[in-house]
């Protein structure tokens, strides 16, 4: 039995002693403790009182290795506000308010500047990479999405296609898991699905026959491409889109709803209704939850499969301003990061919903975008023209005895 007033450090010592008793060369490790899926953040007795756990029964406490703080690695300076960031194992792609998208190495060296848009670039996405060339997308306020091919060796970039069709600023794009299609959401309240496969000039049979053929080839912007499908249903601007499944698209909008669409048929599958404008959504296939950031300070977790109108599973509150972007961890089913207008990026574990695990307060101005790579890199870009990178070791959820 454990004294009631013990805190995490005391319990940590206890576990360490037990482990040291078993193994001679056990090194001291900080542990974090979970009771009923909730992190222990205060003395045991207070926690149990709050959660109404009776002291009569046996209480199981899980111990996990304590998550270390993300270590700041790089700070990359841009010329203007950073509207979006997406990183892979080797490269970082950022979209900037100076109408360009840029590619950086993980060390912070500028590799490439992609200019072509006539307006601010609002969102960027990688389509596919291999060692020779990579395909990437940039969406802009000039109502177009450009598909670029980047030749890694020669370090040259070429615009393959210019996707026209939107009647308003394209605020968000998402590439599906097969990497052949992408979806875009815009201020004209529509979602459009496009093909992400580059085609040559002669060969336009890939597009559906009944689409009007536009053979315009502007020198810089590549062939014009029209959407495969348009999904309409939102009554206000679409702020964020993502692919939650192979044929399922999830879109969040200023009309306070998150809608789930069937990409094949173009039908609306279900709607989750909230109270506030949604700024950003992120989906985790590990825990099958949607996290949304809204124009109030809360991050809400939803179950996309729920049939009811609105079921907020959990609400994470710590920010003091709008939450502009959220992103789940690709490896850990309980962790996510969020960026907000209060200049702070917070790392959350959903098991501890009252306070984030860590606050990364490095930005001096609004945080506009965040990203989390599989390799354990956290990125955040903001209105102070800086992109910060943090190293956070990728851990799957550990469960001790």
């Amino acid at each position, binding site marked *: 039995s454990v004294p009631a007033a013990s805190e995490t450090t005391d319990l940590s010592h206890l576990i360490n002693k037990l482990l040291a008793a078993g193994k001679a060369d056990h090194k001291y490790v900080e542990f974090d403790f979970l009771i009923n899926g909730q992190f222990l953040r205060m003395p045991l007795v207070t926690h149990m009182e709050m959660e109404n756990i009776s002291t009569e029964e046996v209480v199981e406490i899980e111990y996990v290795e304590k998550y270390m703080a993300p270590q700041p690695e790089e700070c990359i300076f841009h010329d203007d506000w950073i509207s979006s960031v997406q990183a892979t194992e080797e490269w970082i792609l950022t979209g900037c308010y100076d109408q360009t998208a840029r590619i950086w190495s993980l060390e912070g060296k500028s590799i490439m500047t992609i200019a072509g848009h006539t307006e601010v670039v609002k969102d960027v996405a990688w389509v596919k990479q291999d060692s020779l060339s990579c395909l990437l997308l940039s969406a802009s306020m000039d109502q177009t999405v450009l598909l670029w091919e980047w030749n890694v060796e020669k370090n040259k970039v070429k615009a393959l296609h210019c996707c026209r069709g939107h*009647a308003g600023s394209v605020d968000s794009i998402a590439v599906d898991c097969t990497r052949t299609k992408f979806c875009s959401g815009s201020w004209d309240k529509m979602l459009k699905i496009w093909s992400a496969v580059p085609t040559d000039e002669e060969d336009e049979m890939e597009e559906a026959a009944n689409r009007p053929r536009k053979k315009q080839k502007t020198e810089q912007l590549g062939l014009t491409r029209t959407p495969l499908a348009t999904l309409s249903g939102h009554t206000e601007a679409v702020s964020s889109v993502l692919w939650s499944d192979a044929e399922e698209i999830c879109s969040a909008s200023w009309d306070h709803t998150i809608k789930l669409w069937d990409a094949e048929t173009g039908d609306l599958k279900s709607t989750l209704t909230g109270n506030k404008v949604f700024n950003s959504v992120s989906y985790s296939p590990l825990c099958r939850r949607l996290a949304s950031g809204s124009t109030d300070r809360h991050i809400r977790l939803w179950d996309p499969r729920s049939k009811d109108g609105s079921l907020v599973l959990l609400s994470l509150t710590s920010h003091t301003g709008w939450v502009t972007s959220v992103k789940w961890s690709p490896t850990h089913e309980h962790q996510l990061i969020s960026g907000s*207008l209060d200049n702070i990026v917070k790392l959350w574990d959903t098991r501890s919903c009252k306070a984030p695990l860590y606050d990364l307060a490095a930005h001096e101005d609004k945080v506009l975008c965040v990203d989390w790579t599989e390799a354990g890199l956290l990125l955040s870009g903001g209105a102070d023209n800086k992109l910060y990178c943090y190293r956070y070791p990728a851990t799957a959820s550990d469960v001790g005895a």
Partner: protein
Amino acid sequence: PCPALTPLPSAPLQDIRNTVGNIPMEWYQDFPHIGYNLEGKRIYKPIRNKDELDMFLEKMENPDYWRTVQDKMTGADIKLTDEQVDLVHRLQKGQFGDVHFNPYEPAVDFFTHEVMIHPVTNRPADKRSFIPSLIEKEKVSKLVHAIKMGWIKPRKPKDDTPTYYDLWAHEDPNSILGRHKMHVPAPKMKLPGHEESYNPPPEYLLSEEEKLAWEQQEPAERKLNFVPQQYRCLRAVPAYSRFIHERFERCLDLYLCPRQRKMRVNVDPEDLIPKLPKPRDLQPFPTTQALVYRGHTSLVRCLSISPSGQWLVSGSDDCTVRFWEVCTARCMKTLPVGGVVKSVAWNPNPTICLVAICVEQSVLLVNPCLGDKLLYGATDQLLESYVAPEEERVQPVQWVMATMEEHSKGVRLVIQHSKAVKQVTWHGKGDYFASVVSDNSNMQVLIHQTSKRWSQNPFRKSKGLVQCVLFHPIRPYFFVATQRYVRVYNLLKQELTKKLMTNCKWVSSMAIHPGGDNIICGSYDSKLAWFDLDLSTRPYQLLRACGVTLGGTPGRLEGGSQSPALTCLLHHSDLLQNPLLVPVKVLKGHVLTLDLGVLDVLFHPTQPWVFSSGADGTVRLYT
């Protein structure tokens, strides 16, 4: 004596002698005779020649005078016998005349009172002596019939409750008895303590200094009215000199000192607060500051938002107009206009992308080139497709196409006025707009039509200094606010429809509900007048607010003020109750600069957000 009469044995002498019958003897008063005898000769009265003297003598001397009477029949004097005198005496006493009459004879029963063995009659009793009386039955049935017919009303049974007389039923509470009820008893006298003892403990005796202090004090402010004394024994205690004085004072307290109950007003302070709906029920409304749009270097006087809600335009005293992206506070464009910007207005028609900006003496129509390329391209085309009419029209203003340099910045048309323009506002459809010039003539308000590039002056006469104008969102009404009144004109009929009396000295701004039936006027003397257009020309409610108030917006109405705080008012229209303007939240954020705080406020067209522009050069978004 009668000579010829032979007395009959049966008839007394007197009867024979009465020969006249039963007549009043006064008839024979004057005659010397009374009657006639059988021979027909007069019977003369006895001569009476006695005079007064003789009669007197006779009275004195005659012993039988008292029993001598004159017989009327014959006129002779008769001496009454003893029995006759006795009779007279008995009659005078009131007894019976007859001597032998006994008025007290014993009663002789007709029938004896004793019960005899034989009845008086042997008649058997009638049936009617056993059965109820038939006569009575008949009488009763007649009575019943009469009662049934209502001729006789039966008497109500008397109520046997004892009746009391309530002495105090009609008492006047203000009377003396009422005063007795309000009796506030005098405070009780202090019970004697140790100081009053004839041999108090030494600590109760005053020392020299205390005695001096006691003497110097005013009698009214002394704690003890006396100096505690110490005596050897009770016998030595003298009379208390102040005894009567103290009793007198006590009596004064009792009857002279006015005592009154303190009437505490039992008003629950909660009742005074009007029952406003809870702010929670009126959500959603903006509560906190979300974004700050920084960029202007001087006070930001005016704001306008695009109908889609994506772009915000602000005009400032630093002679620039800035276009902002609402959701990120990014300044997309800055347009230097070369003069202080008093008013901006974004065209409310979503298909036309134009902003009207008032800069000093001109109104610029600017295409901000934000948003859908097709739209603003179409707007440009629309503007270019204008064909000037054949004949020259006389216009109060000049419509000038923008120069190349201005065109590149976005300006498309410049409308030159003759004086400084104060305000510009669009009509709901987006073709007409009105501008207000700070002048005092009839040329203050001008209505312009963009598609025809035509301006007109709708008013012939100036009715006062026009503060601001507004178009009705749905109907063809035009509101002109002068310093004290708001006039409503019907544009189709071209006449004045109504004159709204705001009870304010100086109206500063006006806003209309998008439904079109409520108007709020704000004034510099911190009043908000709320008019219901269908109701009357007088304000439905007059509210007090601190500082200058501005207003305006879809769905809700709000007010900015001269102090840095923004107060968000909500028009709560519950169909069950009267519509209310409920102050809901005070939004803080702006910094007080040059004694001015918030200069303009605006609502987002679709979201419950409020923009406010201030003298500190920022525009703030509250959500």
